[in-house]
């Protein structure tokens, strides 16, 4: 039951610092001001809505720009064997997903007030769109990493094979007959046996930073050991470190995959994060300026008439001397 005693003053301390903390962590400003109960409400409600939405959306819901479907930067057409339009499209698709900025994604601005996620996303966005974040090509230098994948090949007798391969992949750049090309090997195990696969030529590998947990690799295989000539392809998925995928903007293929997997739950997940972000606007403003209506709900007439009978005149006078609204100290002007 509410009472009509004087409304306590709320010490907002430094409202700007409180608002900033509220942006960084929902409820952070309230903890700084000592308003623990409200801080817990904001922290639990806003953060759980946001995290729940992100979890449904496979942590790939924050992106400021819609990803473009295909490469549309200045392509040096001389590097493609352009027989016809379909061939060009195939070669462009082999380059991997585009990493150019498309239209503005307006949902991002609803997520913006939750700094806990938006600030890391901003950093990851910079890394993702960086000119250095390129697919592995002869231009990007040598490569040495443990991989696990499969090798499909045809031997010199025309027999087809498909075997699993796990081992150390080494690729380096060499000057070939037709310019710079990647040459290397993978040495490791295949079905419990030692294997040494010589690799040369066409290499496709996703950039180091991307929204998926792994990078796709595809490289031509030319020989088994020193002597056995084969015509094959090694494909593998290399794990990305958390730092290289967490909160990285998704590419077009990843978004399409999410839509296909989740259906209407994708939009639902987005709505969760939007609602959480917009609710944090209320929390930030509360940290900055105090509660909108006052310290407590107004007393109903029936209640107040009952209480007036039992209250002393001094208490009534004290309650009148206090304003109903703006129960804050250090209130910003």
């Amino acid at each position, binding site marked *: *039951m*509410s009472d009509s005693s004087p409304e306590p003053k*709320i010490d907002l301390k430094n409202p700007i610092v409180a608002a900033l903390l509220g942006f960084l962590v929902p409820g952070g400003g309230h903890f700084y001001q000592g*308003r623990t*109960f*409200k801080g817990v*409400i*904001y922290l639990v*409600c*806003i953060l*759980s*809505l946001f995290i*729940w939405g992100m979890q449904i959306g496979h942590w790939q819901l924050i992106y400021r720009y819609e990803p473009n479907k295909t490469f549309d930067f200045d392509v040096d057409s001389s590097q493609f064997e352009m027989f016809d339009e379909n061939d060009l499209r195939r070669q462009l698709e082999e380059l991997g997903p585009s990493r150019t900025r498309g239209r503005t994604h307006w949902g991002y601005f609803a997520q913006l007030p939750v700094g806990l996620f938006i600030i890391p996303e901003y950093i990851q966005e910079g890394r993702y769109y960086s000119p250095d974040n390129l697919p592995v090509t002869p231009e990007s230098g040598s490569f040495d990493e443990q991989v696990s994948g499969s090798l499909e090949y045809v031997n010199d007798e025309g027999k087809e094979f498909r075997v699993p391969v796990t081992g150390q992949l080494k690729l380096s750049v060499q000057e070939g007959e037709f310019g710079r090309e990647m040459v290397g090997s993978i040495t490791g195990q295949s079905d419990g046996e030692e294997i040494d696969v010589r690799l040369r030529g066409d290499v496709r590998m996703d950039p180091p930073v991307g929204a998926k947990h792994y990078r796709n690799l595809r490289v031509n295989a030319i020989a088994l050991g020193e002597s056995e000539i084969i015509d094959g392809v090694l494909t593998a998925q290399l794990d990305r470190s958390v730092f290289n995928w967490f909160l990285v903007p998704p590419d077009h293929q990843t978004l399409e995959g999410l839509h296909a997997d989740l259906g*209407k*739950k994708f939009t*639902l997940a987005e*709505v*969760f994060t939007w*609602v*959480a972000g917009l*609710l944090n606007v*209320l*929390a930030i*403003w*509360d940290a900055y300026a*105090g*509660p*909108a*209506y*006052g*310290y*407590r*709900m107004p007393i109903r007439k029936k209640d107040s008439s009952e209480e007036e009978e039992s209250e002393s005149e001094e208490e009534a006078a004290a309650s009148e001397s206090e304003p109903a609204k703006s*129960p804050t100290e250090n209130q910003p002007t």
Partner: protein
Amino acid sequence: MNHWSLLAESENILWYILPIAVGVSLVYSASRYEEKESILRRAIKLFFQITIFMFVVFCVLWILSFRL
């Protein structure tokens, strides 16, 4: 098939309204008042207002889509 059984399915997306309504009610009410009791009283009231409103909207849409 009973149409109401659709609503009872645990995977029905409509159930996600409830946690959103709880979050919205608590945060909105907390931004209006400071006193714990006032926040909780108003949040409970708002939660039922939202839920009833959404249920009415659901019923209207359900009636409009009957035998479609």
